[in-house]
C-alpha cells in the first residue's frame, strides 16, 4: 500500500503504534528526565560542598573589599551583633567620640542578620564626624561592601550632600562652614588657617586684603629660585646635583632642595635648618675658633635657642682659652700654637710673613689685614672686631684652666703659677684675665652673630636679658587643615604650577593654590576625580583608636568569641 494511497489512512497507520508506547523508555524522555535530575543535583552538590567546607563566599553579593577579604568566608563576622564595645575594647582604646553602640544599626533579631555598627566597631573606632552634626548615618549606609576590591572610603558625594546640601547644626547655631555644597563646583574658595598670636583665623584665598602669611621668618622664594644663585657651586660640590634643576642659562635650586616629601609622600616635611639651610647659611662666627670635635673646621653654633647658643659660644671660647694654656711643645703643638697666636693668647714667634695665619697680629703691633667682610651675605661675618681689646694673657705654654659655668677663674687657675710656673703674670691675674678675655670675646662675637646670622632669617626680641629671644616662626604645618592633600599623585606637575614661588619675594605671600587651580584637572566629566572624599575625610582621625585592639589572631580570623 503506497504512502500516497488514500487507503493508507491515519487510521491504518495508527495500527503501527504500540498502545502502551508511552510506558516504554525513550531516549528523548529518558535524557530529559536524567538531565532534570542531574542538573539540579549538581547545583545542590555545589551548595553542599561549600556548606560542608564552611565557606559562604558563594552567597556574597559581590567580592568584599580588599581589607575584609579575610572575613569573606563567614558572613556572620560582619552580619552579626558584633561584640559589645565595653566588653572587648579597653576603655583607653575607645575614643570618647566613638559612635554610640548600635546607633542606627539595631541588633539582629531572629532569622535576620543585618550588619550592625557594633560589628564594624569591633575593629574600627569610626570616630564621629562632628560633635554638632544633626544626622549620624550607619556605617554600612556609607561604606558599601560587596562592591568588589574597592576602597570603602570612596564614598559618593551624595552621602556628604545629605547634610551639606543644607547644613544645619544640632544646637541650631549657624554652621562654621559653607552651608550648601553638593559638589566641587559649588565649593567655595579655599580658606587657609593663619596664626595670629594664639588665635587661628581662617582666611579665604580670595580675601587678598587679609591674606598674609604670618610666619616669623624672612624668606624670599624668588631669590632662592634664581638661576645660578650665588654659592650654587658649593651646594653641588657638597650635596651633589640631586636637588638642583637645570634652567635656561644655568642651574637653580629645585623646590625639593628645601621641600622634601614626608615618608608617605603626602605632605612636605617641615623645612629644617640643618637639612635645608646649613649648607648655604652656616652659623660660623669667628674663624679663629674651631670645632672641638673636628679641630680642622671652624666652630659653628648650633641652630637652637639663643640661650644655648650663648652657652655654646662661651664654652667654645673658654675651651680655646684652656687649650692655649697647655700647648704641647714642638711640632705637635704647632697648629694649636698658631691658633693661639691668632687668638692673641700667645705671642707669635718671629716667622716669615708669608706663613702668618689669618687674623694674626703681626709684629710691630700692626694688625694683619683681615679678609674683607661681605656685608650682603651672612658669610660676611667678620672674623674679628677691630674694636676687640687686645689681651695677651700668656707668653708661654704655662697651663691654666678657666672654670666653666662662671666668670670666675678656678682655684687651679688661681694657683696656676705655683704649679705650672712660668706663666706670664700671676695665677690670679691669669684666671681673672681668662674670664675677662672670654667675656670680652663673647661680648664681641655674640652681638654680631645674632645680628648677622640669626636675624638674617629670624625675628629677635630683646626682653631685658643679655640674650635675645627668637620669635617662634609659626610656619604652618598644614595650611588647609580641614582637607587632606597627597602630593604623591601630583608628582608629574611642576611645583610652581600650583605654588607661584618664582614671583614671591616676601614672606607674607601665601603660595597656596586657589581652588580654580584644582578645578583645572579635577572635573566631574573627563577629568581627575572630584569627589568630596578626594580631599575630605568624614571621620575625625585624631580620635582614632589606639593601636591596641581587643582581639587575638584566631578571634579575628574566625570570629570566635567576638
Amino acid at each position, binding site marked *: *500500500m*503506497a*504512502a*500516497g*494511497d488514500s487507503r*493508507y489512512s491515519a*487510521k*491504518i*497507520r*495508527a*495500527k*503501527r*503504534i*504500540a*498502545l*502502551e*508506547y*508511552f510506558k*516504554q523508555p*525513550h531516549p*528523548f*524522555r529518558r*535524557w*530529559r528526565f536524567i*538531565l*532534570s535530575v*542531574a*542538573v*539540579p543535583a*549538581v*547545583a*545542590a552538590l555545589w*551548595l553542599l560542598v561549600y556548606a560542608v567546607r564552611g565557606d*559562604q*563566599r*558563594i*552567597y*556574597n*553579593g*559581590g*567580592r568584599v573589599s580588599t581589607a575584609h577579604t579575610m572575613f569573606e568566608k563567614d*558572613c556572620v563576622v560582619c*552580619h552579626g551583633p558584633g561584640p559589645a564595645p565595653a566588653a572587648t575594647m579597653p576603655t583607653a582604646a575607645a575614643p570618647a567620640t566613638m559612635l554610640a553602640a548600635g546607633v542606627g544599626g539595631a541588633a539582629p533579631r531572629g*532569622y*535576620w*542578620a*543585618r550588619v550592625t555598627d557594633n560589628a564594624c566597631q569591633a575593629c574600627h573606632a569610626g570616630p564621629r564626624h562632628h560633635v554638632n552634626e544633626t544626622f549620624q548615618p550607619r556605617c554600612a*549606609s*556609607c561604606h*558599601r561592601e*560587596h562592591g568588589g576590591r574597592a576602597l570603602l572610603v570612596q564614598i*559618593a558625594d*551624595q*552621602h556628604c550632600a*545629605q547634610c551639606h546640601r543644607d547644613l544645619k547644626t544640632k544646637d541650631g547655631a549657624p554652621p562654621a562652614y559653607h552651608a550648601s555644597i553638593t559638589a566641587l563646583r559649588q565649593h567655595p574658595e579655599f580658606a587657609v588657617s593663619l596664626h595670629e598670636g594664639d588665635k587661628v583665623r581662617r582666611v579665604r584665598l580670595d580675601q587678598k586684603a587679609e591674606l598674609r602669611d604670618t610666619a616669623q621668618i624672612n624668606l624670599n622664594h624668588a631669590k632662592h629660585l634664581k638661576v645660578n644663585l650665588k654659592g650654587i657651586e658649593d651646594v653641588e660640590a657638597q650635596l651633589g646635583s640631586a636637588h638642583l634643576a637645570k634652567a635656561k642659562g644655568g642651574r637653580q635650586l629645585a623646590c625639593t632642595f628645601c621641600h622634601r616629601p614626608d615618608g608617605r609622600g603626602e605632605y612636605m616635611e617641615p623645612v629644617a635648618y640643618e637639612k635645608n639651610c646649613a649648607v648655604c647659611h652656616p652659623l660660623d662666627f669667628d674663624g679663629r675658633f674651631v670645632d672641638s670635635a673636628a679641630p680642622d673646621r671652624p666652630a659653628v653654633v648650633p641652630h637652637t635657642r639663643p640661650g644655648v647658643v650663648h652657652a655654646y659660644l662661651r664654652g667654645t671660647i673658654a675651651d680655646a682659652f684652656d687649650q692655649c694654656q697647655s700647648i704641647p711643645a714642638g711640632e705637635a703643638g704647632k697648629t694649636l700654637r698658631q691658633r693661639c697666636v691668632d687668638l692673641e693668647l700667645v705671642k707669635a714667634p718671629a716667622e716669615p710673613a708669608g706663613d702668618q695665619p689669618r687674623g694674626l697680629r703681626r709684629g710691630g703691633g700692626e694688625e694683619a689685614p683681615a679678609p674683607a667682610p661681605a656685608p650682603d651675605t651672612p658669610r660676611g661675618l667678620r672674623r674679628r672686631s677691630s674694636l676687640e681689646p687686645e689681651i695677651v694673657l700668656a707668653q708661654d705654654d704655662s697651663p691654666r684652666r678657666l672654670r666653666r659655668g662662671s666668670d670666675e677663674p678656678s682655684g687651679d687657675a688661681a694657683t696656676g703659677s705655683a704649679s705650672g710656673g712660668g706663666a706670664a703674670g700671676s695665677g690670679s691675674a691669669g684666671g681673672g684675665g681668662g674670664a675677662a678675655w672670654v667675656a670680652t670675646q663673647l661680648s664681641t662675637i655674640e652681638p654680631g652673630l645674632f645680628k648677622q646670622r640669626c636675624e638674617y632669617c629670624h625675628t629677635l626680641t630683646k626682653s631685658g636679658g643679655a640674650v635675645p629671644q627668637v620669635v617662634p616662626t609659626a610656619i604652618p604645618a598644614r595650611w588647609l587643615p580641614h582637607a587632606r592633600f597627597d602630593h604623591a599623585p601630583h608628582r608629574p606637575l611642576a611645583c610652581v604650577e600650583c605654588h607661584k614661588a618664582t614671583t614671591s619675594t616676601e614672606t607674607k605671600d601665601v603660595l597656596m593654590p586657589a581652588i580654580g587651580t584644582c578645578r583645572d584637572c579635577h572635573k566631574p566629566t573627563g577629568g581627575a576625580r572630584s569627589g568630596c572624599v578626594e580631599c575630605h575625610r568624614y571621620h575625625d582621625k585624631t580620635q582614632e583608636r589606639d593601636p591596641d585592639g581587643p582581639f587575638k589572631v584566631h578571634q579575628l580570623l574566625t570570629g570566635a568569641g567576638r
Partner: protein
Amino acid sequence: MLIDRSHRGWIIGCLVVLAAATAIYVPYVRHALNGPSGGSAVGLTFGVVGFALMIFAGALGARRKVPTWQIGRGTFWMRGHIWLGLLSFPLILFHGGFRLGGPLTAVLMILFGIVIVSGILGVLLQQVMPRLMLTRVPLETVYEQIDSIVLQLRGESDELVAAACGPLLVDTPPAPAERRAGGGLVDRVGQPRSTPRAHPAPLAPTPESAVLRDAYLTEIRPFLDPLVHGNGVMLNPARAATLFRELRTALPPLLHNTVSELEATCDERRQLRDQKRLHHWLHGWLLVHIPLSLALLLLGTAHAVIALRY
C-alpha cells in the same frame, strides 16, 4: 503554543507591569545613594515579585506532572508560563541592578538568561515547526514510535522483496510483542488486520528480479534501518526517484508494483526521518529549558533564603 489574539490580554498586562516597574526603577536608581541594590526595599520587592513569577512559571511543569490538578485550564497555565516567565526576567534584572553580583547570583543570572533564551526559542519554534511538520511530514506519527514503525516498514519491505525475488537471507529480528491499535497480535476472522499492509503474495522469481534484490539489499534496506546515517542515495529524494526509475526500466512490469511499494515505503521512511529531526528541534530546547529551570529554582531558593537572612 501558538501566539495568537488570545494572548493579547497577557501581553498588555505584562507590558503594563513592566512599564510600572521601569517607572519605579529609574528614579530609584537615580536617587539611591549607593546605586541599585537587591537588598534595598525596592530591590527586594523586585526580587520577591520576580521570584514569585519564576515559581509560577515553574509550576506549569508540576501541573503537567499531576494532570488531575484542576487549577485553571492548561492554556491558562501555558500563557502564564510564557508571559509571566518572560516578565520575571526584567524584574530580576531590576532586582540585581543589572549586575551579576557574587558567584551564586552570577550563576543564577546566567542560568536565568539561558532559560529565558531557550524558552523564547521554544515559543518561536512552536510557531513555525508544527506548520512545517504538517506540510513536510504528512505521514506524521507518534515520535516515540518512529523507530518501531521503521522496523515495521523494513519487515514489510523484506516480505515484499522476498515475495518477488525469493528469500533474502538477512537477519530479521523478531517483532516485539506489543499490543497495537486496531487489533491484537493475531488476525481474527472478521476483524481488521493488525498490520496496515497485507502480506504480499509470492511471485515467480525471474532473472531480472536479481536487480531488485541487489538494489534492495545495497541501497533500500539500509535506509530502512532506524539508525540510518550518512548521505546515501535514498536520503536524497531526487536520487531516490532516479534509482526507482532505473529499477522500473530494468524490471518487468510484473515487479513495478513492488517497486512502487518500496518507493512509497522509502518516502514514508524519509518523512519519519524528517519528523524526527523536526521533533528534535521542536522539543530539543526542553532538554536545556527544563533541567536548567529546575536548577534555577533550586539555587534561587537558596539565594532567597540566605540573602533575606543577611
